[in-house]
């Protein structure tokens, strides 16, 4: 029996897709500039099926890519030539939500937002809140160590995963971590988070839940320049405050968000959103300090959310910014570099200069508190050469972030998109150590082959 026949025997009921039309939706993720036709797409419904499929792949040497909702912006869930896609959306059950232990145990295909929704009646939430939270899955979040606006205070996905059950590329099922906040021995689950599916497939994920903050104080400030907004962020930090979130949008992204969702934002070169969260007395005291700081920062207009509805209105534009920018341009590339906070101004100025040099528009919307930039490079894929120019510009931006002491990615991962830039950030020895770990766990190189690790690392010195 050949590989495909065995696969079909493992997953009955039409859950192995091989027809052209069925495969098409899986050819790319949210980075649509890259496309690959997989050999087949399989739709497991139970973890035992995933394990059997992985073992079959191992036996036949067939590469596989796990896929959640395919919202990766870096080509992380792009299929591998001749390989299969393990589409995990049907594994979408919350297996246990235990308010006493403050944990949720979920299948990998559970959508991020659903955990917080299910936890809400107990006064709990799942903290990492990527803008894609209504669609992206926890399996994808785990693979990419995804973050969101509220990462400054609460950290990223890795900080909220307590345990994992995974199947390694050779088909071994192991439990890493546990159900508690403290363990003994190496933090292997912490290590798995962020390895982009190269070391195995997450079958079950144990998440920590936090009490929902008692009070929020959300402020929107308008500035005449992007630097002005950036400087305000530094002032907030220097004042000793620790906001839950600090986000900046530039003129282009404000316009896009306005067109898309009519958030009612003021006209400005830049908007700063600062959100405080915590017990009401503490938030009240912090708010006073914050207002003093913002007053001195030269904001042209300041709005404060007086109700949950007004708070949601402020966030609506920000959360919609990526998709809204799609209205300004037929195509765009989202970058995700990080710079030290004090270098934000310099980074933004340089990005503007590069945009002019490449004759492309760049919209900026970013997690200012973390120094995590999201420059959106707008281009028109139908115009010859424009994608290449956009990619070259995006590459310059990545180099810039590394040069300023930052990182290639804050939350979107390396995928296929940024792997060529890994040697800018890591020395050859660092990359070879990653290769060795990959090779030890995946001797046939089947799990998400061709992602993250640059080809240069293999080349002899």
């Amino acid at each position, binding site marked *: 029996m050949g590989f495909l026949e065995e696969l079909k025997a493992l997953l009955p009921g039409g859950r192995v897709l091989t027809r052209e039309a069925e495969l098409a939706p899986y050819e790319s993720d949210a980075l649509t500039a890259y496309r690959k036709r997989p050999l087949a797409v399989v739709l497991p419904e139970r973890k035992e099926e995933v394990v059997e499929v992985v073992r079959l792949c191992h036996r036949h040497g067939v590469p596989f890519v796990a896929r959640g909702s395919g919202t990766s912006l870096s080509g992380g869930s792009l299929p591998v030539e001749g390989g299969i896609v393990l589409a995990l959306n049907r594994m979408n059950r919350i297996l246990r939500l235990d308010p006493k232990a403050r944990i949720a145990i979920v299948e990998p295909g559970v959508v991020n937002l659903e955990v917080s929704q299910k936890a809400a009646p107990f006064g709990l939430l799942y903290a990492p809140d990527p803008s894609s939270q209504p669609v992206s899955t926890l399996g994808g979040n785990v693979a990419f160590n995804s973050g969101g606006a509220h990462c400054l205070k609460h950290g990223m996905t890795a900080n909220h995963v307590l345990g994992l059950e995974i199947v390694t590329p050779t088909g071994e099922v*192991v439990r890493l971590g546990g159900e508690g906040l403290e363990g003994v*021995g*190496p933090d*292997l689950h912490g290590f798995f988070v962020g390895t982009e599916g190269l070391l195995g497939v997450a079958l079950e994920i144990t998440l920590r839940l936090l009490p929902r903050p008692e009070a929020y104080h959300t402020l929107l400030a308008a500035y005449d320049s992007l630097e002005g907004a950036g400087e305000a962020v530094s002032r907030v930090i220097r004042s000793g405050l620790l906001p839950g979130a600090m986000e900046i949008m530039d003129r282009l992204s404000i316009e896009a968000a306005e067109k898309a969702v009519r958030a009612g934002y003021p006209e400005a070169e830049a908007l700063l959103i600062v959100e405080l969260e915590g017990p009401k007395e503490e938030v009240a005291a912090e708010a006073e300090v914050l207002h003093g700081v913002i007053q001195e920062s030269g904001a042209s207009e300041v709005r404060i959310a007086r109700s949950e509805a007004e708070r949601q209105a402020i966030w609506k534009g920000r959360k919609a910014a990526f998709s809204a920018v799609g209205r300004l341009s037929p195509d765009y590339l989202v970058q995700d570099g990080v710079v030290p906070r004090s270098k934000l101004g310099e980074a933004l100025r340089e990005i503007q200069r590069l945009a002019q040099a490449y004759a492309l528009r760049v919209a900026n919307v970013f997690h200012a508190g973390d120094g995590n930039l999201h420059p959106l490079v707008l281009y028109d894929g139908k115009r010859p050469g424009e994608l290449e120019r956009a990619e070259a510009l995006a590459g310059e931006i990545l180099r810039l972030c590394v040069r300023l002491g930052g990182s290639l990615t804050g939350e979107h991962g*390396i995928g296929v998109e940024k792997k060529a830039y890994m040697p800018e950030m890591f020395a050859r020895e660092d990359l070879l150590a990653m290769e060795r770990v990959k090779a030890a766990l995946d001797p046939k190189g089947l799990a998400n082959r061709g992602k993250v690790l640059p080809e240069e690392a293999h080349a002899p010195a």
Partner: protein
Amino acid sequence: MPPLRPTTLEEVQEAVLAHPRLRVRGGGTKPALSAPEEGEAVLDLSGLRGLLEYQPEEFVFTALAGTPLGEIEEALGVHGQYLPFDPPLVGQGATLGGTVAAGLSGPMRHRFGGVRDFLLGVRFVDGEGRVVRGGGKVVKNAAGFPFHRLMVGSLGAFGVVVELSFKVFPRPRATRTLRVEMGSLEEALGALEKIRLLPLDLLALDLLPPATLELRLGGFPESVAKRLERLKGLLGGGEVLEEDEGHWRGVRDLSFLEGSPIWAKVPAGLDRIPLLESLPLGPRRYLDGGEVLYAGLEAEGLRALRAAGVPYLVLKGAEEPLFPRLQHGFFLDVKKALDPLGRFPLGWGHAA
């Protein structure tokens, strides 16, 4: 053999290549972990110390692994910042590297998380003498394999950590502590369960068996005063501790374990506490809303933990500090990749 005491990265590399088996020692505050076994050379990292980079506005610092925590805390304190995971044994000379390798956090981990949540990047020398960097020096980073998180609790199994970058936070301006005596363990556990679900933003929430809770608040002085009153209302009273800072310094230096021959860290959790309380353990305290237990034991207590199948890490006073032993393929494969000859602890016949 006298300990090797490298003062440069190159000397660490040389030491690793020259010795088939090594045991790293930071400050030596967790002797069960840092004392050499038969045939192991001791690599004393106290010569690799110092703060390399610190920009308060970035909430980030980078330091050499042998730096005593006390030194770090002093530098951070000048700018009103602190290590929110509240590392234990600072007073006894624990180092940054030893704290990460042992995976230890103190009572204030309750507020924002443990050592694993604040480590951003590392440089380490692997079992082949190669220098490897993982993570970065910015508060957010998702590039490459996160070797830094692998080092947390690793007990030195994958390499000698030489340099670490951490995230820090502004220190609360004022702190107060409420101590409440409950009628019984059941009552105390009931209260813990309730409090854990409330958005109280406590810095610390400790259970001193059988039935005492200690709750620490931090923030703006006026807000702390008001929240303290609310907390009293919620718990039906309690005593406000006279001195706050000194009390908690004692807790995180594990002074309640003084006099016990064996010191252990035990992952707990509300559901497991009744079981733990039925075992013959010595002086002890549950931190972080009952999530972790630090206990002083006699040999009998350790046997009881093992018999009950409860995992533990011994910091002091026992031969085999880690239970259960790590055996699965994922761990061994990573170990094989980074320490193929088994120079470092864990695996290939080592106890820990």
